[in-house]
C-alpha cells in the first residue's frame, strides 16, 4: 500500500506554479492528471510526499497559489482512494 498527498487546483496554471515552487524548494512531487473520482473533467494535480504536507501548504500560502483542496491518497496496485484533508 502506497500513501501520498494530492493537491487539486482550479487552474492548470496554479498547478504548474505550485510544482515549480515545490521542486525549487527541494520537495519531491509530480504533476498528474486529476482523478475523475475527485473532479470529473480534465486538469492537473500535484502529488507529493505526505511528510512534506506542512512545508508544501506553507509554500502555497506564502506565494498565494490558490488550490481547491488537498487529499490523502492510498494506492494498492491500480486501485486508489482519496480522502479530503484540507479545503480552500
Amino acid at each position, binding site marked *: 500500500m502506497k500513501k501520498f498527498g494530492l493537491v487539486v487546483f482550479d487552474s492548470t496554471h496554479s498547478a504548474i506554479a505550485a510544482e515549480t515552487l515545490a521542486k525549487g524548494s527541494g520537495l519531491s512531487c*509530480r504533476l*498528474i*492528471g486529476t*482523478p475523475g*473520482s475527485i473532479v*470529473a473533467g*480534465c*486538469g492537473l494535480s500535484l502529488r507529493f510526499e505526505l511528510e512534506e504536507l506542512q512545508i508544501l501548504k506553507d509554500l502555497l500560502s506564502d506565494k498565494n497559489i490558490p488550490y481547491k483542496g488537498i487529499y490523502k491518497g492510498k494506492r494498492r496496485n*491500480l486501485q*486508489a482512494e482519496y480522502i479530503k484533508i484540507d479545503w480552500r
Partner: protein
Amino acid sequence: MYYFDNAATTAIKPKIIAEKMAEALCSGIYGNPSRGAHEFSLNSFKKVYEARSKISEFFGGGGPDRVAFSYNVTTALNLIIKGILDPKDHVIITSTEHNSVLRPLSQMAGWGVDIDVVRTTGDQALIDYNQLEDLIRPNTRMIIANHSSNVTGNLLDIDRIGRICKDCDILLTVDAAQTAGVIPIDMKKSHIDILAFTGHKSLFGPQGIGGVIINPSIDIYPIITGGTGIDTFNTHQPETMPTILESGTINTHGIIGLLAGIEYIEERGIKKLRDYQLELSQRFYDGIKDLEELRFYGDYTGDRTAIVAFNIGDVPSSDVASILDERYKIAVRGGAHCAPLLHEDLGTVEQGIVRFSFSSMNTKDEIDYAIKAITELAKMV
C-alpha cells in the same frame, strides 16, 4: 519515451517541417504579408498564397481565396459558428462533438439558436443517420459533423451527411481536426460547405496554425476585425475572403511549416500513411482485445482513425495514464477528452477513458511494448 497521444498533437514530426521553418526564419527574406509592396512583404504574400493554393487543392476546396488561416481548429469553428448562424436558426450536431463546437454553440443558444443533438448508442458509439434526418426542420441552417471522434476514433459517414445536406439545402460544416492529413477529404465530392482544420496534428505542422475553407456564396460576419493591409480608410472590415477572416499579421512561419507538412504527406502518399497507422492501431487492438479486464469504446469493425479507447476494470483512466507515464514512459491521454456528451453516452463521465492514438511516426516495436505494458496492468486489477 513512447508517444501515443497523436490525437492531441503529433509531437514527433518529420524533420523537413522544422528545416523549412528554420530556413524561413534564418533567411531574413520574409516580411509581413499583404503589408506593403516591397520584396520582403511580397515573399511572404507569395508563400502564403502558395500554401492557400496547396490547401485548397488538398481538400478539394473552391480556390486559394476561400482558405482563411486561424490559430487552430477551435478558432476556425468559432469564426464559423458565430459568424454564420443567426438567432432562430436551427443546428444539428452529434454527441461526438468536441467542446470546440459545443461551447461556441452554447453561447449561440443564448442568442436564440436552436440545437438538436443526435446521441450515440452503445459502447460502439454508433450514430443513427435516420434520426439525424428526422431532426431536420424548415429552419435548419447547418449540420456540424465531427469527421472523426477524438475519443473513439469512429468516422462519421460524411458523404451520407453531405447528400442529406445537399438535398435539404443545409450548410454542412465538417470538423476535420482528427482527419485532416490522414483521411482523404474532397469538399466538392462530399458536398462539404465549410471545412475547419488544424495544422499540428496529422498535417504535421507546428502548433498555432489552422484554418477554414468556405465555399463561395456563403455570407459570413467577421467576429474579429482589424488591420488587413488593404482598404485602410474603410471603417468596416473588407468583405472579401480570406481578408474578412484574417485581421492582424498572420502566422507566416507556421504556414510555411504547415505547407511542408502537406508536401510531406503528398510525397509519401496519404493512403500509405493511413494504412500504416491503421496497421499499428489494429496490431495494438489485437494484442489487448482479449484481456478480460478491458472495456473498449468505439466501433473496431468500421472506418476509423488510429485510436484505441478503453478502460481497465473500474480504475480511473487518469490513474492508468499516470502509471503508464511513470512506470513505462508511455504518454497517452486519460480523463475526459473535451467531449462531454460522448462521455455521457458512454457512461464514462467519472472514470474517463484511456486513449491511445497512433501516428505514422510510431513503430511496431513501440506497439509491442505498449501491449506488454497494458497486459501487465490488466493483471494488477
